[in-house]
């Protein structure tokens, strides 16, 4: 592909160091391959591939060298490099994670040293330590603990101040209060030569709480990096064709819909649009997950981020900037980080109600002990223990941590989440309903039979078909365009739900849709083959077009897998009985119905739900929206622009149905971990709080128990991640 290296790829190197996003990494082997290949290039001083975020860092020996050598070397290995600059959101997240890590390190160092001094004092108290030595150790502890807590406690102190300013209560407030009280009390104890100080409690509390936060941030950073890699695919510049026929290079943002851009071989698209001239093979793996290149010809839609193959294309721009499909996918990924599942909402609410309770409980405990005759000193110590131990940090971490882990796992497999509570709803599914056309089967353009439809009528039918979003109509439109070149869709087309489309063509009523809609007899169907019919009526004349359908590559395996998971599988199709039967037989699905209207599908789904089933509907997100909405949860396959339009809870990109059982498994595990986390947090609070109030818990034990429980919860959430990464079955393995 050396010849395809056009001008657009000779990126001027303003700086010696550069970052690239590498596409096409399927195994860790890539690291060795790429680094060894690049080490052989004399132009490069340094090249290192980061496997975690799939980015390559290179350093050039001198300025002004062309990036083409690098691109060619990677291309020879089957990888593609895209120049990358870190976006602000990710840079912020990375900086914050680093900061938390630094705080963690300081807290850890201080906690260890103070703990050693404390152990000496405790053993000394049991034997006969000289009071001077004990005071020395306490002052030493204070010397270490006060600056260390001042530094490591910053994340909590800042958050607590911010919350108080907003007149809100977050967990940071009792944590900060607990730390400050413990430290202040300890300094006082030291000054009055007491036997005990609590510097160790404050530091241990900070250390473990920071550990939980760092884990949470690292998970978020990873997901955000994936989204940023996707954004890097959009070309920053485009070549716009001016009215006088000359070319100008413009930034992608300056493009407007209606502009015509010229895309050279090997160039990436800067905007969405339609091909108006030229043919080429395009790499759209970011949308489909397929490594196969797709041929495009005039009339085809192309999207920002796709890479042009060997041909030159003229493209009419449709969408630019934030309205491109690429930008919308990125936006969806970003949102999934913030969507609040039902569990997250519950946890949030509990935390909000709970924070004041923590303070009140601590205050009441202190008051109670004073009334019971305890000294002020003892009462305060017990109150500190209660304050620390009651913090429901584990509860606040229980659900969000799992949410981030699971949505990250879904992304990595090409699934986009469009609703917050998908995890919980998916986990309950016991019945899977498939739509047939476009879901289990895909129309096979080679099996198109026009059955005597004259060529001029085919063009009208195709132009009508282009206005529809039905998979069969789309296939028809694409097939006719492949033979006759680009066509424009008819104007003023009305869609009759579940029936077809109609319009007036030079004052003649034309219809395309089901045979009944066009009042035409269905042609005889060959036995044992899934043939679907599409009818076309032009005024008084009507024809029946038949189209064979092929099963999606992994449909058989997917259905078998779903059954093995103990789920009921069913097909509800609008296509006629004879077209559904062979598909159901091939997939060995016993319950199936064909010839259903959209209303029939709704009734069927409602009946299933009335019987107490939680139904997952897998269907076409554009034409089957009511049925998808009637199910408990829905998944829709999507390619290209459909990704952002499909009305389903989960949308998957690519050709493989295998993501359906995968998503079910991921969500089931995610939900299980969430419930476990809630139980852990709850049991901990139920046990620890009464003990603390009874005065049996020292601040040190309180700190260990409280922070221990939140670390436990964060680590448990990570378990869902390991399942997510390891439970990737067939889909990934087949590709590699």
């Amino acid at each position, binding site marked *: 592909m050396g010849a395809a290296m056009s001008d657009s790829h000779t990126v001027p190197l303003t700086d010696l160091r550069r970052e690239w996003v590498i596409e096409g990494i399927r195994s*860790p082997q890539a*690291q*060795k391959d790429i680094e*060894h290949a690049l080490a052989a290039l004399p132009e490069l001083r340094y090249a290192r*591939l*980061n*496997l*975690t*975020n799939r980015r390559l860092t290179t350093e050039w020996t001198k300025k002004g060298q062309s990036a083409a050598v690098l691109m060619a070397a990677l291309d020879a290995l089957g990888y593609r490099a895209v120049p990358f600059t870190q976006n602000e959101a990710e840079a912020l997240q990375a900086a914050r994670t*680093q900061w938390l*890590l*630094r705080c963690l*390190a*300081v807290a850890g*160092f201080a906690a*260890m*040293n103070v703990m*050693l001094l404390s152990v000496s004092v405790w053993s000394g108290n049991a034997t006969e330590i*000289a009071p001077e*030595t004990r005071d*020395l150790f306490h002052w*030493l502890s204070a010397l*270490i603990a006060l600056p260390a807590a001042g530094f490591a406690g910053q994340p909590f102190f800042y958050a607590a101040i911010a919350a108080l300013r907003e007149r809100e209560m977050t967990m940071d407030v009792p944590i900060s209060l607990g730390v400050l009280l413990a430290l202040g009390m300890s300094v006082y104890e030291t000054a009055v030569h007491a036997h005990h100080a609590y510097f160790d409690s404050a530091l241990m509390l900070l250390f473990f709480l920071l550990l939980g936060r760092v884990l949470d941030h690292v998970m978020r950073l990873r997901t955000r990096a994936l989204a940023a890699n996707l954004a890097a695919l959009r070309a920053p510049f485009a070549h716009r064709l001016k009215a006088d026929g000359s070319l100008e290079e413009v930034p992608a943002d300056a493009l407007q819909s209606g502009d015509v851009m010229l895309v050279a071989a090997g160039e990436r698209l800067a905007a969405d649009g339609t091909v108006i001239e030229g043919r080429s093979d395009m790499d759209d793996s970011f949308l489909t997950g397929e490594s196969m290149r797709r041929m495009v010809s005039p009339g085809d839609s192309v999207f920002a981020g796709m890479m042009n193959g060997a041909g030159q294309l003229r493209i009419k721009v449709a969408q630019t900037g934030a309205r491109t499909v690429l930008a919308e996918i990125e936006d969806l990924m970003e949102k999934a980080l913030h969507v609040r599942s039902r569990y997250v909402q519950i946890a949030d609410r509990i935390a909000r109600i709970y924070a004041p309770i923590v303070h009140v409980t601590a205050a009441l405990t202190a008051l109670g002990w004073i009334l019971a005759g305890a000294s002020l000193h003892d009462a305060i110590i017990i109150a500190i223990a209660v304050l620390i131990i009651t913090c429901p940090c584990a509860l606040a971490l229980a659900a969000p941590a799992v949410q981030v882990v699971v949505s990250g796992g879904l992304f990595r497999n090409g699934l986009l989440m469009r609703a917050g509570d998908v995890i919980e709803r998916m986990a309950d599914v016991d019945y899977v309903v498939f739509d047939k056309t476009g879901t289990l089967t895909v129309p096979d353009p080679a099996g198109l039979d026009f059955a005597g439809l004259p060529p001029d009528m085919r063009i009208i039918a195709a132009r009508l078909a282009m206005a529809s979003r039905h998979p069969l109509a789309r296939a028809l439109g694409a097939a006719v365009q492949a033979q006759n070149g680009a066509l424009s869709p008819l104007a003023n087309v009305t869609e009759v739900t579940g029936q077809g489309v109609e319009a007036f063509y030079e004052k003649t009523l034309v219809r395309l849709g089901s045979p009944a809609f066009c009042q035409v007899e269905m042609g005889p169907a060959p036995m044992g083959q899934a043939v679907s019919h599409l009818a076309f009526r032009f005024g008084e004349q009507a024809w029946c077009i038949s189209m064979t359908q092929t099963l999606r590559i992994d449909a058989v395996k997917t259905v078998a897998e779903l059954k093995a998971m103990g789920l009921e599988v069913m097909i509800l199709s609008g296509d006629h009985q004879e077209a559904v039967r062979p598909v159901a037989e091939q997939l060995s699905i016993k319950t199936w119905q064909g010839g259903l209207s959209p209303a029939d599908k709704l009734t069927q789904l409602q009946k299933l739900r009335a019987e107490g089933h939680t139904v997952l509907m897998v269907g076409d997100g554009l034409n089957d929206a009511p049925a998808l909405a009637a199910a408990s949860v829905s998944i829709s396959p999507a390619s290209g622009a459909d990704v952002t339009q499909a009305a389903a809870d989960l949308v998957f990109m690519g050709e493989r149905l295998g993501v359906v059982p995968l998503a079910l498994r991921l969500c089931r595990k995610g939900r299980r971990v969430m419930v476990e986390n809630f139980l852990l947090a709850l049991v901990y609070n139920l046990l620890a709080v009464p003990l603390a109030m009874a005065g049996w818990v020292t601040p040190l034990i309180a700190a260990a128990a409280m922070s221990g429980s939140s670390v436990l919860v964060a680590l448990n959430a990570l378990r869902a991640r390991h399942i997510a990464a390891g439970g990737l079955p067939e889909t990934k393995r087949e590709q590699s």
Partner: protein
Amino acid sequence: MSVLLYLVPTALGLGLLGLFAFMWSLKTGQYDDLEGAAHRILDDDDLRGT
């Protein structure tokens, strides 16, 4: 107890040394790619030339 006079500063100094070592490794990006590092250690092609 005069032994404490140099033992305690020594212990703290060693701890601080560890802390600075960690801060340095964090700053130089040694934790940026834990996954890659796991695979890189298995690459013994650099021994071929020797």
